[in-house]
Structure formats: structure tokens, C-alpha cells
């Protein structure tokens, strides 16, 4: 799974590394309108809680959460817009 994610081409990268909870979630919600259904969004977050929050958000709103992988000081989270 992790290797799959690393080769994934995102349609939009949202850099939310500068905000703590609930900043990345807000950034994701605001940015999701910029892509079309079926496109991939990537969220960069340095907030640990976001790794749990984004999948729950996807589950509630209907996007498909693909997973995350860690970089040195942050994580990359991936999802497909509903």
C-alpha cells in the first residue's frame, strides 16, 4: 500500500503543515471544492490527530480515503473525491 501511495499522482496538494488541529481538516474541506469527482487530493499535515480525523471525515462525507505515509516531519494523506 505504502509503495502504491508513493507513486500516486495527485490532482491537488494541500499543504496544511502550518496549522494544528482542526486546521488541516478545515484546509481539506476548503480545498475539496477545487477538484472534480474521482480526482485525487493529497494533504500534507504535521498534526498527528489529522491521521485519524481525515479518514473519519471521508467516511462521513463519502470520499474514498486511500491512506497515508510519513515523511521526516509530516505525513502525506490521500483521498479520492466522491
Amino acid at each position, binding site marked *: 500500500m505504502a509503495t502504491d501511495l508513493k507513486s500516486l499522482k495527485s490532482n491537488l496538494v494541500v499543504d496544511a503543515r502550518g496549522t494544528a*488541529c*482542526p*486546521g488541516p481538516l*478545515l484546509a*481539506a474541506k476548503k480545498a475539496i471544492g477545487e477538484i472534480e469527482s474521482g480526482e485525487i487530493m493529497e494533504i500534507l499535515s*504535521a498534526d498527528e490527530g489529522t491521521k485519524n*480525523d481525515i479518514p473519519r*471525515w471521508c467516511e462521513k*462525507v463519502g470520499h474514498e480515503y486511500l491512506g497515508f505515509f510519513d515523511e521526516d516531519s509530516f505525513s502525506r494523506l490521500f483521498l479520492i473525491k466522491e
Partner: protein
Amino acid sequence: MEATQEITIQELQVQIDALKKKVGKLEKNRKDQLSMAVVSGDMDKILATMIISLAAAAMDTQVKLFFSFWSLSALRDPKKTPKGKDFISKMFGMMLPRGKNKLALSNMNMAGMGPMMIKMLMKKKNVMSLDEMFKQAGELGIEITICEMSMDLMGFKKEEFIDYPNLRFAGAGTFVADASESSIQMFI
């Protein structure tokens, strides 16, 4: 034999119709909505209120906040000084915090040292400031209702509250009505 089976299906249909009606009613009563009664004017509790509200709004949940009693201090605009207050109202106005940046902590306040330290830490750890949270809340359509009765009781005037896009004034009945159709209700 056939006749009895027909009756059973008919009975089932009646039961299904009744259930459908009930489910429809339940769905209408349990909106994807968060109602919070915010009574505390402590900085930590206002922070919690705003963080939960923003997270809910980000998850497409409609948010309705009902501010009453001590929490009204958080909605004061320090730049606004309304005229025509009586003596007691003026006293209250002087003794209560002038806005969200003057709130005390419920614990470890240490004569204002605590809030200062928390604000420093929040900045360092990239947590949004209360000012930023209210700005975001306004943009996300989070509704704030001011309890008219506590406003009168504490001698506040409508003119001294912050400029907020979805600010309204109402009574406890409005909170109860909002809360009764919300799937999440909280009291802080």
C-alpha cells in the same frame, strides 16, 4: 390458505407504511446539526467550543451556538463603547473581560500569566488564535445566537458585540428548538 397469506401481506404493508412514516419523522428530527449552549466565559472552554465547532463545520455539520451568561464576554468588541448604560451595567462592563482576548483560564490563571503562556504556546504549536477561529467560524456559516435575557441581565448592549456574519439575538426557546432537531447537543 391463500386468503390468510394475502392478509399477512396486507398487514405487512400497513406495518411498513407505519414504519416509513416513523423513520421519516425521525430523520427530520435528527438533523446533521450540532447545538451548543455556551455558558462559561473561561478561555479554555471558549477554545474548546470553537475547535469542536470548526471541526464539525469542516465535516459538513450545521453548527448553532447559543451564548449565554459569562460567555457573552467572549463576544464583546473591545473597540466598541456603547453609551447610555446605567451605573450597575457600567460596573459589570468594567469588571467583565472585554472580549475573547481578555478571558481568564478556569485553571492555572495565575493573575493572567496562564492565558499569556497558553497564547504563546498556541502560537508556537501553530494552533489558530481565537480571533482566527471566529473569523473561520463566520466564513463556514457557524451561527451564533446571543441570549437576550442574559444580555439584559448583565447590562450589555447589542452595539458592543463583535461584527459577526451570523449573529442573532433570541431566547432559550430558540436553543431548545435548535437542540431538539440536532443530532449532537452540548452544554459548556
